[in-house]
């Protein structure tokens, strides 16, 4: 009697990952064509949470569209609102008060840390490690409390306004931010000992999911993805904005291009962000936090771009004005969209669990892809 059934070795099957699956962090579906355990084609299917933000931008005034921008990448709201107000300020030629710029840097970097902590927890959860999530969310909670006190929101901040900020920071915030920096430094050492040097993690990440610098360029991948492929591209340096040129920080780069390199970039960025916050707190000048802004915002006709380094990479807003109160066109260039677009090429031939590690290392936020 034949024990093994005759199999056709050229046979493939289709496996659906998502749209409801914990590893996709939201409603992303990936249609996988599998040859046994190996992926022959991975086709992301997007749009499950598409909200047409760009159309909403065309039927309300600039100020009324601002809260939308904090809801595209909900983990990185400070950066996204920054890009939008930045584009309008550029178009209106508004001179920003220096105090507001420094507070923007402080709150943006706090937001970057909280975003990276969510990534850290969720990514390790994907890989089967539950404990780090509890530590990461404990630290993140301190940032959310700090930002809630000055912005009124814990996640979808709308703190930046065209020409400044809606609210000045108080002494309690400055004291709290300094305490957080002091608290976080030893925690980074703890994360390194608990997670980074863990042999199970390294076996899941080292050499897995290589992405070359050339692939990043062809797909427009940015943020920790391109920096994990050895390219020191960071919008804060490439297109300096706000008061970043006055602050001293390094761009962490790891040349390996594997999932571990992307992991290490983000862990190193946590440290750099703490340094930026500390410097900005030291240099924080007195003065107003709001510029003189016309009651009705009517940018002169033309198009204006403003890019920021969000937690996931380059986020750019392009506004096209016809001289009216309502934008003629708002284009939102989001990092997760470009970073995911290389997944099909990068995951070809990988084993499924390794592809999930690669997916997690891209740090996707699905509403940021679908907009």
């Amino acid at each position, binding site marked *: 009697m034949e024990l093994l059934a005759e199999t056709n070795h050229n046979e493939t099957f289709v496996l659906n990952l998502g749209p409801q699956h914990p590893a996709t962090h939201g409603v992303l579906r990936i249609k996988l064509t599998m040859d046994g355990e190996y992926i022959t084609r991975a086709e992301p299917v997007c*749009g499950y949470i598409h909200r047409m933000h760009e159309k909403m931008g065309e039927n309300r005034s600039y100020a009324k569209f601002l809260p939308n921008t904090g809801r595209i990448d909900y983990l990185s709201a400070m950066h996204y609102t920054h890009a939008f107000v930045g584009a309008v300020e550029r178009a209106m030629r508004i001179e920003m008060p220096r105090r507001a710029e420094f507070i923007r840097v402080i709150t943006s970097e706090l937001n970057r840390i909280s975003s990276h902590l969510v990534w850290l927890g969720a990514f390790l959860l994907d890989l089967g490690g539950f404990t780090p999530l509890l530590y990461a969310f404990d630290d993140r909670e301190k940032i959310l409390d700090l930002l809630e006190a000055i912005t009124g929101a814990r996640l979808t901040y709308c703190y930046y306004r065209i020409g400044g900020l809606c609210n000045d920071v108080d002494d309690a915030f400055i004291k709290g931010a300094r305490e957080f920096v002091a608290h976080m430094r030893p925690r980074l050492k703890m994360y390194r000992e608990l997670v980074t040097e863990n042999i199970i993690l390294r076996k899941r990440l080292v050499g897995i999911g290589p992405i070359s610098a050339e692939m990043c360029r*062809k797909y*427009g991948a940015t943020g920790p993805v391109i920096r994990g492929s050895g390219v020191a591209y960071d919008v804060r340096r490439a297109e300096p904005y706000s008061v970043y040129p006055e602050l001293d920080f390094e761009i962490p780069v790891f040349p390996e291009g594997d999932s571990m390199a992307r992991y290490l970039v983000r862990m190193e960025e946590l440290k750099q962000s703490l340094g930026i916050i500390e410097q900005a707190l030291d240099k924080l000048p007195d003065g107003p936090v709001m510029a003189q802004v016309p009651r009705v915002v009517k940018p002169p006709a033309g198009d*204006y771009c403003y890019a920021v380094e969000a937690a996931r990479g380059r986020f750019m807003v*392009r506004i096209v004005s016809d001289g009216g109160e309502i934008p003629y066109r708002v284009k939102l260039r989001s990092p997760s969209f470009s970073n995911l677009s290389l997944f099909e090429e990068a995951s070809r031939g990988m084993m499924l669990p390794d592809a999930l590690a690669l997916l997690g290392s891209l740090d996707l936020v699905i509403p940021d892809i679908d907009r």
Partner: protein
Amino acid sequence: MTPTLDQLQAAFGRLLSAAEPPADGTARVVDYTAKGYHFDATVAPQQVVEAARLLDQIGFALDAITGVDWIAQNEMEVVYDFFHPSANLRVVVRTRIPREKPEVPTISEVFPGANWHERETHDFFGIRFSGHPDLSPLLLPEDADYHPLRKDFAA
């Protein structure tokens, strides 16, 4: 190799003068602080692939592709954004096409990342990218036959 604005100006100058049939394109350096990009080029629709290839050869990365519906002029504009990973330069390439027959060649052969950006632009504007491998809806529902960012779109 890090390109400079002078090189860009010269390269786009050659590209524009070689347009066949001749077209009135422009290429100029713009004030970054005022606009948010360094270089702005307008090319004929049939030249977008050449322009993309030119930028690819000097190391530019694809930033985004999108459209603008200029309904009053009865035209659609396709806007290609590029950034350079090391030279800190931002380049915009644009082209205009008639609204009745909005069609440009795809640049996804040059930049594979353009595939999704062009699909999205097709979703929103109904601009056809000839030669594109798959223009099925990316963000809109799979049976969508409308283009919401057209100015005459009514829900």
